[in-house]
């Protein structure tokens, strides 16, 4: 999902309707994030649906949609089978070139210095020492060719290698009865996942792509790769990993993407 999605110019009639609706609505809300949500949500479609209702109910529509999204998190947690493996593919099916995707453009891809790189581990874990890259490289490595599915709809098959995340969590003595694992990244991205998915056998701390060291555009020095979740749940350039029972949210999730984001 790129950040540059914008409203395309609407017809003047539609603009008038939206402008009027905003005039009624915006003074009623003080909260900044809510205002941002409303100005994005107010399309002619949204206004048309609400005709006949009090237009100021839009804030409660937002609340209702968020509640349903939380409900869908619960449903997906219930559907999720920890033993169910995502399909794997032969090397001949790898998508070339594999697409770059982030909330910023290629010119903003972060360049991380591997030699000074330190991974922080925090929250409900026994061992909170920092990790260096060679520590991760010396752990048992596995590789898989799986399909990456973007929330936008497209998909691409890629080959990732690295450390099984459940091995890493065991090594740091993570409380695996905790609800969430959160990630903070060098590109200011952040996200979080459920513990069951964190422990899934195909969830990797990926250090390589297609047999070579993970290139910057795919998240050097390390990304979390989960074939059981949509692309935006897979953080790149990870700097800190923490285990928690307090819902950590995420960069896109806080703006309205579904939190579980499972495939």
């Amino acid at each position, binding site marked *: 999902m790129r950040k540059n999605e914008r*409203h395309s110019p609407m017809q003047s009639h539609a603009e008038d309707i939206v402008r009027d609706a905003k005039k009624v609505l915006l003074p009623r809300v003080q909260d900044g994030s809510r205002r941002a949500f409303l100005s994005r*949500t107010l399309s002619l479609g949204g206004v048309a649906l609400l005709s006949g209702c009090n237009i100021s109910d839009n804030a409660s529509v937002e609340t209702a949609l968020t509640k349903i999204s939380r409900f869908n998190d619960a449903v997906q947690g219930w559907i999720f089978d920890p033993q169910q493996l995502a399909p794997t593919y032969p090397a001949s099916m790898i998508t070339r070139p594999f697409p770059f995707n982030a909330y910023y453009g290629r010119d903003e891809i972060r360049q991380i210095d591997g030699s000074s790189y330190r991974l922080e581990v925090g929250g409900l874990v026994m061992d909170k020492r920092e990790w260096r890259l060679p520590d991760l490289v010396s752990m048992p490595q596995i590789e898989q060719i799986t*399909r990456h599915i973007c929330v936008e709809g497209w998909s691409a098959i890629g080959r990732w290698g690295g450390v099984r995340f459940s091995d890493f969590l065991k090594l740091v003595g993570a409380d695996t009865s905790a609800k969430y694992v959160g990630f903070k990244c060098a590109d200011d991205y952040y996200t979080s996942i459920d513990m069951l998915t964190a422990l899934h056998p195909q969830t990797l701390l990926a250090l390589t792509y297609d047999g070579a060291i993970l290139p910057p555009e795919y998240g050097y020095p390390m990304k979390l790769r989960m074939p059981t979740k949509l692309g935006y749940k897979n953080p790149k350039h990870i700097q800190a990993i923490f285990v928690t029972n307090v819902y950590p949210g995420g960069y896109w999730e806080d703006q309205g993407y579904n939190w579980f984001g499972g495939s």
Partner: protein
Amino acid sequence: MPVSLNPAGRSQPVSGQTRRTVQPGWVRAWHWINVLAVWVMVSSGWRIYNASPLFDFRFDDVLTLGGWLGGALQWHFAGMWLLFVNSLFYLVANVATGRLRTRFFPITVSALVKDASAAFHGRLTHADSRHYNSIQKVAYLFAILDIAVLIASGLALWKPVQLALLSTLFGGYEFTRLVHFFSMAALLVFVVVHVLMVIVVPRTLLTMIRGR
């Protein structure tokens, strides 16, 4: 029709309105909820399509619901419950009341050919709106099956890993996108014809609103 005399001496149908009811209340409720559900799903679906178009066109943003991809996804994954529950209710009620059998069957090839020929010559009658002609039967059954395909292919797109078998049945993730898109397009073709027929026979709109 059997009638009884009320104290005022006016003749009245024995069972009041129900005798002449063309569309029972539950069918009407289902129909209009379905209109809402399909509209939410299609208009939010177009916005999701626009995020990564399958073909060389986009839907005008004015026609879409949600304002941006995240909003459209929220609508789509809320609307799916409405569509799913309403469709399930429709199916169960149709089977339980016997309406599925009596309204939509039998369909015979000869009746279909006869009705198609009559329709082609502009002579297909809708004289008794309690009975569907063969073209109507086929069209409505098509819409029912098409919505079933939409729901199933939507599930396969939502859960290609957890519902791996369903995803495989639809030909894998990318092919499922095409199935989902074209079954949406097919439903819209049905809707256009359906609305045109309502314009031709406006009485059917009344029966779907007040039952008679």
